[in-house]
């Protein structure tokens, strides 16, 4: 065998993912614009990780939770009918994964919403201490919202979803979402004001 085994010539990861297109599973796909899984992963992995983080999945479980989200998405991609946007659909999966992790943690009695490591580790050096502190502060504030309010608030304020999209993700109606969002914003304002008073 020669030193250059020619492997470098055929490396695109998309080749792997081409194999993963659900047609291989035997489903007959409806005519829905559906990206391949790799594209989906690349486009959403950071956002979904952050979403899970802001929903209170402990840092030590974020990789597993994100992985689970994408594995479920991979399995269900074939049945995605385009009734909602892919972004909304993925957030719906991630939301259920987050709930599942939080339930499991609560059962274990070891629920620690905010990792104590969050402040100091695993962050880029260009991410200043002040920025990290801001994130930690926000996560602490989010913990003080109730679950439904927090979900609506995070989906709108961080993930950029609209109220109707949040309604899809949370399987509730738009009015309910608007009410939760309003309450969440009021509460968040109070909490931020409280921060100022505490200084």
């Amino acid at each position, binding site marked *: 065998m020669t030193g250059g*085994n020619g492997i*470098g010539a055929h490396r*695109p990861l998309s080749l792997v993912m081409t*194999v993963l297109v659900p047609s291989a599973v035997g489903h007959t796909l409806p005519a829905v614009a559906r990206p391949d899984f790799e594209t989906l*992963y690349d486009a959403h992995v950071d956002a979904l990780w952050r979403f899970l983080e802001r929903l209170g999945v402990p840092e030590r479980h974020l990789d597993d939770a994100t992985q689970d989200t*994408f594995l479920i998405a991979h*399995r269900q991609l074939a049945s995605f009918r385009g009734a909602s946007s892919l972004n909304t659909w993925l957030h719906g999966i991630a939301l259920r994964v987050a709930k599942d992790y939080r339930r499991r943690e609560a059962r274990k009695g070891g629920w620690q919403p905010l990792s104590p490591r969050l402040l100091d580790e695993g962050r880029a050096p260009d991410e200043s201490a002040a920025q990290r502190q801001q994130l930690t502060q926000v996560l602490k504030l989010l913990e003080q919202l109730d679950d439904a309010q927090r979900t609506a608030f995070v989906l709108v*304020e961080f993930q950029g979803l609209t109220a109707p999209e949040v309604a899809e993700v949370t399987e509730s109606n738009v009015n309910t979402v608007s009410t939760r969002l309003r309450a969440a914003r009021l509460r968040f304002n109070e909490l931020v*004001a409280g921060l100022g008073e505490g200084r």
Partner: protein
Amino acid sequence: MNDELSRNARTLLDAARHQGGPTTAQKAKLTVAVMTATAGTAAAMTTGAAATGTSVLKLLGAGLLATFVGVSGTVLLKKASEPPRAPAPTVVARSVPTTVVAPPPVSPEQPSVEPQPIVVDEAPAPTVQPAPVAAPRPLQAERSPAEPATPEVPAPAPTRHATPSDTTAAEVTALGAALEAIEEGRPLEALQTARTARRAAPNGALRPELTVIEIEALCALQRKEEASELAASMPESDRTSLVVQRLRRTCAAR
């Protein structure tokens, strides 16, 4: 009723909006884990899992590097309190919730990790098909069943022949570990990991990537001359775009 965010709240949110997210190392590991798990499904979909596994693993290594290159510019702080990770490819020992294909034969050597399917009973629009739970597939499972565990003729070094899948799996693991070490400021460890893996498989699928990490580690250790020599020795066929992209940022850049 005023349902808008106050100015202070908005400022705080705006500042925190893009904070967090996975670190480069976390993302690289996640990518390998997701691609391994989904590729396992693909391999089971098609026949010849062993053959597919080899190419999949090759590409996973490339994916790892692609992820790394893609998120360039992010350098990590050392995770001081994190215990050292086992060299085994833990990413594939993670439970895979469900797949739509029949699980591969379970060998008695499989890890005792209990798969914990994610609760999907609250799934909204997408239809959730109850599917059999596939057991996690360790990379070692890529070995052909016909492959003897030990060679019939006594050999001095290895206890059994490494199949291409074994080699690539080891390379993926080594590359992940070396990437993490270099990112977290442990260049000596990165150098040793990458060099050992590269020398163990001189024609390995991930040789170019391992070489680049080795060069980076040498640069970090102020051993520029060695780094330049190693870079110069890289055959042209190893200079894939991702490798070149990364190589350009080292002290051995031409």
